[in-house]
């Protein structure tokens, strides 16, 4: 039987469980003993029926009655032993598979932190999320069932087969004659249904994406009155999904008539042949009873594996997707002998820096620039000029494709990433906060900060005032995405977070563009104070905020075209001057 199209996925999945070999081996042993007990029970029932038959005829002595009772009791004991041992075996399997799934989740989590930023920037996050949550959950739910049922079924089938042969070779032949046919049918069904299930998964993903997109863009749909059009699009995917899942489920459900048909065909043949043999006097009635029970158990074992087939298929394709994720190329490994500047002053050197997000597309051609410690650098340019790219490179979210960036003389690729990033205080465009208290979120900038330090940072970032007005103050719990406070307030918290660490170099990426202007004035003061004696890169659209920078980098299409102070660049009368003047052009034209 084709159990899987991809043995390596199965192998890898099993290797996770293989780590808990000890409990698996004990479990297999227990299940084996349990299966023997399970197989013996019908035998004793058969014996006792034979004895009872004699008793019913009224010609039985003490011996027969005693035997009847003992056989009956033994039968019950067999089932009890079976129940207890198989339960313990199952407990061990549960423990092993759950630990394995735990390991898998941990592996995924570790993977998340070792993937290059490029992965996150180029993958839709709904897709990754589905792999990490739904797929792992699928594995978690079915791993134990699949493993345990398969172990149990294999033993049951072997032992039942031996028992049946023991009773009668002919009956066994007739009883199992339909099994190969059924297996072929089942194999065909599984192959077909797995195609449908793959399609179903694909369509589910498509539907998820669609729903996510239009629910979060609900306002836009409403505002433009496009409900019908959007509904239509949904209907199409929904119908496709229905077709795929209906086909898949129908095929999977066909397993039931296939296995039942085979089971009862065997049963019929056994009854017929058994009766004929019995009439010939070669078989007792009790043994026919026992045999039919073995046959039923054998069939149940097969069908339980078959019923699990779609589930296994689903688990395997889930595992495949998870392993695909785990196989994604990781970040360039850390330098072998990490260096760190002996004295951290905050000097940043760009030495023939070349970079492009795609291998064949160079964005930044040749950047040479030295930023002295304590200098305040403004980075300006039209939208899409590559200002954020510059930050990506300094922080080593992306590696340069040529040249080098050095901090205080050390190539940033020679430093440990964490050490490098600790040099920076960063306030980004997106105000990511995690679900937890405000205190925890500010403390994120420096995990061992005391409460006093946190509050001091919040005060410096002008966030203290609004925090105090929230219920619970610093213990106010932010929901996911910090949806329960305003965008400007989120920004203030991220600033406080960046301030807490007191790093030697500051990076501000359009940090203040969504804070209202009055608050911004306060923040500006705080930032100026914080930046004293520090190297700072400021990306802002409001040119007034960077006018008095020590150095302004004017960028366009990825390259730095003009460098100098405000006055120098204005005198140059190039792109910067045009951009600056455009602020007031309205007035001049009037």
């Amino acid at each position, binding site marked *: 039987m084709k159990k899987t199209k991809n043995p390596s996925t199965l192998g890898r999945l099993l290797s996770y469980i293989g780590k808990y070999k000890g409990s698996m081996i004990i479990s297999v042993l227990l299940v084996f003993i349990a299966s023997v007990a399970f197989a013996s029970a019908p035998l004793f029932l058969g014996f006792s029926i034979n004895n009872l038959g004699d008793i*019913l005829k009224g010609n039985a002595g003490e011996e027969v009655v005693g035997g009847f009772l003992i056989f009956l009791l033994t039968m019950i004991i067999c089932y009890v032993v079976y129940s207890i041992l198989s339960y313990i075996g199952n407990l061990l399997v549960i423990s092993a598979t759950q630990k394995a799934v735990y390991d898998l989740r941990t592996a995924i*989590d570790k993977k998340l932190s070792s993937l290059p930023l490029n992965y996150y920037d180029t993958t839709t996050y709904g897709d990754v999320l589905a792999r990490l*949550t739904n797929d792992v959950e699928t594995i978690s739910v079915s791993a134990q069932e699949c493993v345990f049922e398969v172990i149990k079924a294999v033993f049951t089938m072997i032992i039942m087969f031996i028992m049946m042969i023991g009773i009668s070779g002919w009956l066994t032949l007739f009883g199992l004659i339909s099994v190969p046919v059924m297996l072929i049918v089942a194999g065909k069904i599984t192959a077909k249904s797995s195609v449908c299930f793959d399609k179903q998964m694909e369509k589910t993903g498509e539907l998820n994406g669609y729903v996510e997109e239009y629910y979060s863009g609900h306002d836009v749909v*409403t505002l433009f009155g496009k409900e019908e059009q959007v509904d239509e699009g949904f209907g199409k995917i929904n119908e496709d*999904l229905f077709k795929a899942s209906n086909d898949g489920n129908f095929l999977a459900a066909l397993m039931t008539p296939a296995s039942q048909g085979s089971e*009862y065909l065997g049963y019929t043949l056994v009854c017929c042949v058994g009766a004929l043999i019995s009439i010939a006097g070669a078989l007792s009635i009790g043994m026919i009873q026992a045999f039919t029970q073995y046959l039923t158990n054998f069939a149940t074992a097969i069908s339980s594996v078959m019923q699990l087939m779609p589930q296994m298929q689903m688990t395997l394709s889930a595992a495949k997707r998870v392993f695909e994720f785990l196989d994604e190329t990781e970040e360039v490994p850390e330098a072998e002998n990490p260096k760190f500047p002996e004295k951290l002053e905050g000097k940043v050197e760009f030495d023939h820096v070349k970079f492009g997000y795609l291998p064949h597309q160079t964005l930044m051609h040749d950047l040479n620039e030295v930023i002295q410690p304590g200098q305040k650098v403004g980075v300006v340019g039209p939208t899409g000029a590559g200002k954020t790219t510059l930050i990506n490179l300094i922080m080593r979210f992306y590696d340069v494709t040529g040249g080098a960036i050095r901090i205080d003389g050390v190539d940033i690729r020679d430093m440990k990433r964490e050490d490098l990033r600790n040099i920076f205080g960063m306030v980004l465009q997106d105000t990511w906060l995690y679900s937890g208290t405000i205190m925890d979120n500010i403390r994120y900038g420096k995990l061992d900060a005391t409460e006093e330090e946190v509050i001091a940072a919040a005060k410096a970032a002008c966030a203290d005032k609004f925090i105090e007005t929230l219920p619970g103050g610093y213990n106010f719990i932010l929901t996911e995405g910090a949806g329960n406070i305003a965008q400007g307030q989120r920004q203030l918290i991220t600033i406080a977070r960046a301030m807490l660490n007191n790093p030697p170099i500051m990076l501000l990426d359009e940090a203040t563009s969504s804070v209202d202007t009055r608050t911004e004035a306060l923040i500006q003061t705080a930032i100026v104070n914080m930046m004293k004696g520090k190297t700072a890169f400021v990306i802002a659209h409001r040119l007034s905020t960077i006018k008095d920078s020590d150095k302004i980098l004017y960028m366009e299409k990825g390259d730095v075209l003009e460098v100098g102070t405000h006055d120098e660049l204005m005198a140059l009368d190039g792109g910067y001057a045009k951009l600056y003047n455009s602020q007031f052009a309205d007035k001049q034209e009037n």
Partner: protein
Amino acid sequence: MSVIFKEIKEFKKQLIFLILSVIGSTLCIMLLPTRLQKLIDYSIPGKDVGSVWLTTGTMLILVTGLILCGIVTAKLSSLIAMGVGRNMRAKMFNKVQGLSREEIDKFTASSLITRTNGDINQVQTFLSLCLNLALVAPIMAIVGVALSVHTSPSLSAVLLVSVPILAVIVIAIGKIAIPLSARIQRKLDNINLIIREKLTGTRVIRAFGTTAFEEKRFDTVNVDYTRMNKKLQNITALFLPAIYVVVAATIGAIMFVAFKETQNTAEVHTTGEIMAVIQYIMFILIAVVCLTIVFLMLPRAATSANRAKEVLESENLIKDASEARNNEDSKGYLEFKNVTFRYAGADVPAIKNISFKAAPGETTAIIGGTGTGKSTIINLIPRLYDVTEGQVLVDGIDVRDYKLDVLRSKIGFVPQKAILFKGTIDSNIAFGGNDMPTEDQIEEAVITAQSYDFVTEKKDGFNTAVSQGGSNFSGGQKQRLCIARAIVREPEIYVFDDSFSALDFKTDKTLRKALKEKTKDATTVIVAQRINTIMEADRILVIEQGEVVGMGTHKELLDTCRIYREIAKSQLSEEELNR
């Protein structure tokens, strides 16, 4: 659960056939052992080979019936379960499309997403299981009891003991397992939450070098979740062994009763009878087990069904006017009359007593601090929310007296968050049109929105693919495309909610100039943070804590409004102020 029944009703015909086919296959299965009994009791003792062949023939017919009924059952149960899922999803999606902003906020978008996908899938899976197991079980149980009582009432009496015992076991396990699985669901939400946060916060996490902290944070929930999962599986694994013990005891009891009765000679059984009763009782117990599985899954499915129901039955707060009005003669007049708005559950109104009038060709700007209620004001125009007090009038008619689509066709709204949909640039801009816009109209809108250069620079131009959320465009580009989308609508009223924030000054300026040309006859309302963007507006409203604290032109406000002056000072240099 009522939702599910309501949906199943649409498949009445299929359901009837399904029940018939289930009855058919159940009967076939249950009649088979009676044939074995016949063989044992008559054919074998009578050495009647002829009747053996006859019985075998009957059994073969039963097996064929079983297979045929099984195929029909598979077909219909899948059709009904998946069909109900499809219909519920469609209804849910349609419903959500029509919900108002307030209700969406109440549910939260992410919860609505889970409800549309996860919860309905849960219902669908449950239904598919139900249609197989839950239908078979009662039929099997009833036929089983009937046959075994018919065969031997006294042996059947054993059931009176073993069924209650089984019921107690089932209920006891369910009592522990069900609340536990609800708790596990919440833990799973936690895990998903953390992973989601990690995905969205990669940059920040790495910038702060808190990878180790994050790993610990995840590990805590992972350990917790694994432990509870293990506990649940341990308990549910108890179920099958317990049933086996009960089954064994039941068989033993039947044999023993038969034996005792023989000794008392009250009733003499044949071996075939005893074996048949054992078989029937097995069927009854199987039925109980089937029902139990359904019963164990029920709470989870019921929770999901209820979550779906909440959405399906939620009432839309913003409705079409029953007697809709429209004013064809007047175009582009907007008036706020003493408008006050309070968010549901809030103590203080978000905006208070706002009044202003705007006529075609005029630009009204709204400026003020974060969270002062600027966006709230403009959200009232297309009825994303309804006023609490006062009136918003468009072309002299209260917005609540319009049909929604008529009202909204008058408005070109550019939201704060630049949202694009998966498709092409072309499809995204066409999305804004009241009717299907022509190619020329789209191109013109793109030119006005200062997007022509970057659009045509792309290899596929207007057919360039837009990925989900427009993530393959920069913030500024997205904003401009959203503006183009509003322009193509050719509305009477333009509303810009801080829609120029991601643009640099140069682009901002040229765009506004081009826009002014294009919107000559339309009313424009702009919410902005930047003074530059709104300096030349005909009317500037300065908002502070939900109230208008100043209204006038830039020049007037500089003289009369302290707050406006402060804002201006923070953004403009001395010379610019005095220019």
